[in-house]
């Protein structure tokens, strides 16, 4: 990792300590590999390379000297749009396939073919079923679950013309989507159609491809992701406010440490059930451990944090470093954002990576496949493996670098409304009065190109200072939590209006609303506010940001936010800069099409100024004080 100062990699003490330990232990990390890759391919960075057929691969010379068209004749605009379209399709596919796994679990519950899963929030099951038009009266929970699962499966095809939650979209926004032709039709349909369109010789108009990218992103945000969120709540409980802890200090030197990593609650909830089994606790004690400690990484960690208050060990860039503590027996993973390098890092210690999904195997990992019929038993096997690994842990190599920080979590829309007395009216009043000037969803990942958590946490600080309520999901949750921003005491860092509201309600100025599929909660909340005010989402004083994003999924989230009417600031540019048409569309043209656009700004203060300026305009247009 060279001679660079540790503070250049991360603002977090736990990360810095573990990067130093990785150097001593000879463990290669994500930052080493980034350095090896730099400078990245300039064509790819600009989106100007096309690998879609074997007349190529082709590159468009951005300096105008070499080829300006691929072998097929595609110019820079078409090549960039094709690549971006596929990027967004992959992100939507990831969220939505995760959503489908939850429907399959719901179906198994409805069919009565699983003893391992059940309905933890029957009231929500019935409410959602009614919302999407099912008759629930006189039916038992299983029957409703079955019908709801069938209904949601249909959202993935294209039978009904649109998706179940389309009615959550304010009328003005739906009319706009109809006019532009981007109403999502079916989750799989719109994703597959993008793969079709970007095959050679299909859609060769950059703007047309980008509009379809917007449509399929909406099928994710208001479809696949929203289904994932709502069905997760039905199966595992709707989150309510609670406190927990965050950072590598949640690992315990005298206990068996198991980390869950990935995205879906289906596996992690079963691991949680197993770690409390008295027989396993007895085995752990017999192995010399004081207990079994479960903590989360990334979004499956967020799922457990929101619903069960399970502590979070870290976000994306902490996943390798968690293993470097030498204190982790097992990392059990499902899918998405799990660096293949974890197997290698685990191999440098006594740790084991356990894969659980047939669609996400890692060479060198231990594969213990989970399904709806065997999940509890398989979870027991995972915990037993962890206890065995604890026996061979080398205590001399263990270093747990920091003390954990407290966080408040669990702010589902249901919980927020309950805290407000059952309706959004008090929130709307606070916004009208200017105490809360607006709301900003700050979401997304870590990216080793950016000093870890610097942009995420500082953008949050800058926003709350300006009386903007911040909602966080995904990896930003940990960025915020580690800095103490997820506790009510952080109200002291907020502007006077927001501070007053937070103190009155006993809530933090930064609300943790879930995992990355739970960005759908933010969409739903925006939809509710706009409908209550009789306006479009693009009229609301709201914005979004993904300061340290890295993934295809984040590109999809950004696009569904913009296509839903929410101005979105990205901390890093997507690979579209090689096309003037696509770049101009993203940063300005979309404003005239969907009433919102992207901005790219890596400086958190300048990003906050962009957001603030946007919210001023929106507030003024609504006749409010800026």
């Amino acid at each position: 990792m060279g001679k660079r100062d540790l503070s250049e990699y991360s603002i977090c003490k736990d990360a810095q300590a573990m990067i130093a330990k990785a150097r001593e232990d000879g463990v290669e990390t994500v930052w080493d590999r980034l350095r090896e890759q730099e400078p990245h391919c300039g064509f790819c960075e600009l989106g100007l390379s096309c690998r879609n057929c074997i007349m190529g691969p082709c590159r468009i010379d951005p300096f105008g000297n070499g080829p300006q068209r691929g072998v097929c004749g595609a110019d820079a605009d078409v090549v960039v749009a094709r690549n971006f379209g596929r990027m967004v399709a992959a992100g939507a596919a990831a969220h939505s396939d995760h959503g489908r796994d939850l429907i399959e679990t719901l179906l198994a519950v409805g069919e009565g073919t699983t003893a391992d899963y059940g309905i933890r929030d029957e009231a929500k099951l019935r409410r959602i079923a009614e919302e999407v038009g099912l008759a629930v009266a006189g039916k038992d929970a299983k029957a409703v679950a079955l019908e709801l699962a069938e209904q949601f499966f249909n959202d993935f095809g294209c039978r009904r013309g649109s998706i179940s939650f389309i009615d959550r979209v304010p009328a003005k926004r739906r009319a706009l989507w109809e006019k532009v032709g981007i109403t999502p039709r079916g989750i799989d349909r719109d994703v597959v159609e993008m793969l079709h369109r970007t095959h050679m010789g299909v859609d060769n108009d950059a703007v047309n491809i980008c509009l379809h990218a917007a449509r399929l992103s909406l099928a994710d945000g208001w479809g696949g992701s929203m289904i994932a969120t709502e069905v997760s709540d039905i199966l595992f409980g709707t989150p309510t406010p609670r406190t927990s802890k965050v950072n590598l200090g949640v690992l315990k030197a005298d206990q068996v440490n198991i980390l869950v990593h990935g995205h879906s609650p289906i596996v992690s909830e079963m691991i949680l059930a197993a770690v409390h089994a008295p027989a396993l606790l007895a085995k752990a004690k017999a192995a010399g451990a004081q207990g079994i400690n479960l903590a989360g990484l990334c979004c499956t960690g967020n799922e457990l944090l929101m619903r069960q208050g399970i502590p979070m060990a870290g976000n994306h860039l902490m996943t390798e470093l968690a293993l470097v503590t030498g204190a982790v027996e097992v990392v059990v993973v499902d899918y998405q954002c799990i660096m293949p390098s974890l197997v290698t890092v685990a191999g440098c210690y006594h740790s084991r990576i356990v894969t659980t999904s047939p669609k996400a195997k890692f060479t060198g990992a231990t594969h213990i496949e989970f399904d709806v019929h065997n999940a509890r038993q398989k979870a027991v096997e995972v915990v037993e493996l962890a206890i065995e690994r604890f026996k061979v842990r080398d205590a001399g190599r263990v270093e747990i670098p920091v003390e954990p920080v407290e966080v408040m979590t669990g702010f589902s829309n249901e919980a927020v409304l309950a805290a407000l007395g059952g309706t959004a009216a008090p929130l709307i009043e606070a916004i009208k009065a200017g105490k809360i000037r607006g709301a900003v969803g700050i979401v997304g990942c870590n990216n080793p190109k950016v000093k870890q958590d610097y942009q995420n946490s500082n953008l949050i600080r800058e926003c709350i200072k300006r009386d903007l309520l911040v909602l966080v999901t995904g990896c930003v949750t940990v960025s915020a939590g580690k800095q103490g921003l997820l506790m009510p005491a952080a109200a002291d860092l907020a502007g006077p209006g927001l501070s007053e509201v937070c103190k009155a309600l006993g809530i933090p100025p930064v609300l943790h609303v879930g995992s990355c599929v739970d960005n759908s909660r933010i969409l739903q909340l925006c939809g509710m506010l706009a409908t209550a005010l009789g306006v479009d989402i693009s009229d609301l004083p709201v914005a979004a940001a993904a300061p340290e994003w890295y993934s295809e999924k984040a590109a999809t989230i950004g696009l569904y936010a913009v296509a839903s009417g929410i101005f979105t600031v990205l901390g890093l540019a997507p690979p579209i800069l090689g096309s003037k048409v696509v770049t101009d569309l993203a940063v300005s043209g979309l404003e005239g099409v969907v009433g919102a656009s992207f901005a790219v700004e890596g400086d958190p203060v300048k990003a906050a100024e962009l957001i603030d300026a946007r919210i001023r305009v929106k507030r003024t247009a609504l006749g409010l004080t800026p």
Partner: protein
Amino acid sequence: MLKKTVIVRPELCVGCMQCMIRCAQAHSQSKSLACAIREEILAKPRIHLGVGPENKPFPNKCRHCEPAPCQEACMPWAIRDDIAQGLKIVDPTRCIGCGMCAMACPYYVIRFYQDAGAPERPSVAVKCDGCHERVAAGAIPACVAACKTGALTFDEVNLYLKQGTNRLANAVYGVKA
């Protein structure tokens, strides 16, 4: 101090053209890729990829010869050797675009474009300047920094050849390098 130069090993080149794109970026006004491609006068690469049999790529750049035929042919003294030691660098403010240098160059590494260094002239000679500004600042030439396969390295030529001799010696005695 040993004088380092860009050493080309064409057998390692995969034809990715990263050297070209990063060369152009390094010779842009802004030095950032995203901004460089939007400059009014686009920077040009000074390293070129020749295509041999079976599409075998050949990275080709100025050797900074001594004596340099291009320099001897240049009538307005635009190819200077007083900017950085050992490098033949085109001064675009002196170049009249006559093409004599390119005719004299046996390696075909000089091209003619409008250049931001002399925007009033329609076309001046554009060739490798050894990234002398980067090297003075402690960096290596942009083409070398971009090369992922070792086809371009920045090294002292005799040291490089000595290492090659050692590799050969090992090979002769059946030792894998």
